[in-house]
């Protein structure tokens, strides 16, 4: 008995509440504060991006006002600037490229997620689409200049021969232009749409699928009336995200769009986008031209900001309950 109580006393000694030394506490709170500061960097950077671009643009906003959005002159000699050509080009190239890329991307995602093909082939297709996303945009631009554009020029001219009566095709394709830029944008946003649609389709509960097949529908009946509706909010969110990406995409578009400052409604003619205007002129600009470019950058930021916020809102709010 006495030995027993002795060991208990020893044990109590060993397990006495030990207070942490101050240095350890300091390290603990210090690390907490440090990580807080690091997380805040995001907010600081984001807000200062808006501030820097907006203060840079203030002079041009005062000078040109809202007319900047609707006039199309870009004249560094007379210091008259209007961004209509670039805004039009940004919207047209991004929206048209998405109209092509969305069916392709969602179709590819369906092909990857449904058991149409053996799993090894589907995984290989998925891997290749992911690798396509990894290719730098400047390399795609180089390829577009020297390989894609010369290759598709006859096809574009055929389009001109058939549809030349419509204003969208009333010029001949002679090199860089909006149409090749749209096609290279398709290549760039396709992997994003495919990846997001694939994740969305994979997250559809397997019971929904089984239920659809259980009542005797075909594969595409199940896809169109059960699986796609269940995944539609995530896919739409992904489409909006890639719209933002397409609007801000710079290098490949700059290299192939022709950077024209004149307005031309034809898709086969050279055009411009806000991002490519910035890439081309920002380095050499001075005076009010810098401010006008910053103004264009503000417009681009507002466009992409709206699209991105909308994308997040869609994913959070419009998800179907099943």
């Amino acid at each position: 008995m006495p030995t027993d109580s002795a060991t208990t006393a020893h044990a109590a000694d060993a397990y006495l509440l030990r207070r942490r030394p101050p240095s350890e506490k300091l390290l603990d709170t210090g690390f907490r504060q440090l990580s807080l500061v690091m997380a805040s960097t995001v907010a600081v950077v984001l807000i200062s991006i808006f501030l820097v671009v907006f203060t840079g643009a203030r002079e041009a906003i005062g000078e040109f006002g809202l007319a900047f959005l609707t006039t199309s002159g870009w004249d560094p000699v007379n210091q008259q600037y209007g961004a209509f050509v670039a805004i039009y080009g940004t919207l047209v190239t991004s929206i048209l490229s998405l109209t092509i890329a969305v069916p392709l991307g969602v179709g590819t995602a369906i092909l990857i997620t449904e058991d149409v093909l053996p799993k090894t082939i589907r995984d290989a297709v998925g891997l290749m689409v992911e690798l396509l996303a990894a290719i730098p945009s400047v390399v795609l631009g180089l390829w577009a200049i020297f390989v894609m554009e010369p290759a598709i020029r006859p096809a574009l001219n055929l389009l001109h021969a058939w549809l030349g009566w419509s204003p969208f095709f009333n010029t001949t394709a002679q090199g860089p232009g909006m149409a090749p830029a749209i096609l290279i944008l398709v290549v760039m946003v396709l992997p994003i749409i495919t990846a997001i649609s694939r994740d969305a389709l994979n997250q559809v509960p397997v019971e929904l699928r089984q239920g659809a097949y259980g009542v005797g529908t075909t594969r595409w009946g199940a896809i169109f009336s059960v699986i796609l509706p269940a995944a539609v909010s995530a896919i739409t969110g992904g489409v909006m995200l890639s719209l933002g990406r397409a609007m801000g995409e710079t290098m490949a578009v700059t290299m192939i769009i022709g950077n024209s400052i004149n307005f031309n409604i034809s898709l086969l003619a050279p055009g411009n986008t806000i991002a490519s205007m910035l890439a081309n002129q920002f380095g050499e600009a001075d005076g009010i031209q810098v401010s006008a470019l910053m103004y264009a950058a503000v417009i681009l930021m507002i466009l992409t900001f709206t699209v991105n916020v909308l994308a997040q809102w869609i994913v959070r709010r419009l998800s179907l309950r099943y």
Partner: protein
Amino acid sequence: MATTSIRSSKNNQPNALFDRRPLNFDPTLKRNRINRVLTSIAGVFGALAVLPLFLVLLYVLFQGGRLLSPTLFTQLPPPPGLDGGGIGNAVIGTILVTLIASVIAIPIGVGGGIYLNEYSTRGWFSQFISFGNDILAGVPSIITGVFVYGIVVSTRLFFNQSFSAVAGGLALAVLMLPTVIKTTDEGLKLVPQELRWGSYGIGASKFVTVMRVTLPAAFTPIATGVVLAIARAAGETAPLIFTALFSPFWPEGIFNPIATMSVLIFNFSIMPYEAQNELAWAASFVLVIMILAANLIARWISSLSRN
């Protein structure tokens, strides 16, 4: 079609509760024909999606691969109009600028991710940070170039130097930051709560728990994300055009303009000289190989945990 078959089966076996006809697949049915058409359309879409990768890789490997030689990495680009030369300065420049960006973005990003998942109470502040992180990820890369130009280049912030490798590195760091934060946050979310409780239970402080238990447990997803972010940054051009600029010479320290492969491809592809265009293809080859290798490494890292 279906109604007639039921009626006929009822005529044959009036007492059977269920139709005993064997399961059969009639390929001439309208729904099955539509099914086949749609499946082949999806197949064509998939092929179209993969086609550009093959075409781009094919051209980059052929056009760039045939220029591969030791001098490519040891010589400077030639002046316009002359032949030969290499892209040695641009290779070093890309590595240097990406390194600067990684040194800035990875600690801050991992720290921010740790805050979001380990310390924050998921209140309004951390929600604001997560939201801001998603928005920052969506900011066009050219805008980050304009931003760094505005605060570093035009103000001559560093030693009265305008364009510099550090400015380029900062611009790339802004691009990398959201990816690193996101992958750290997501990676830490996967760590089982029991591991943290176990660590607190044996008396470890929060700092020790994060450093010795939680972070190592989430190493694989974080490392995968970080490698992918580095690969993406190495190929970025837009933020570098007017921050790091370009230089036809060997790097002269990190506070001077520096050549990078991506800007070299951009500058040389629009030049009317054969030699420059060929160097652009060669640089594409080197860049694509580096980035694809990084992607495969990332896949290998992420497969480590699965086995």
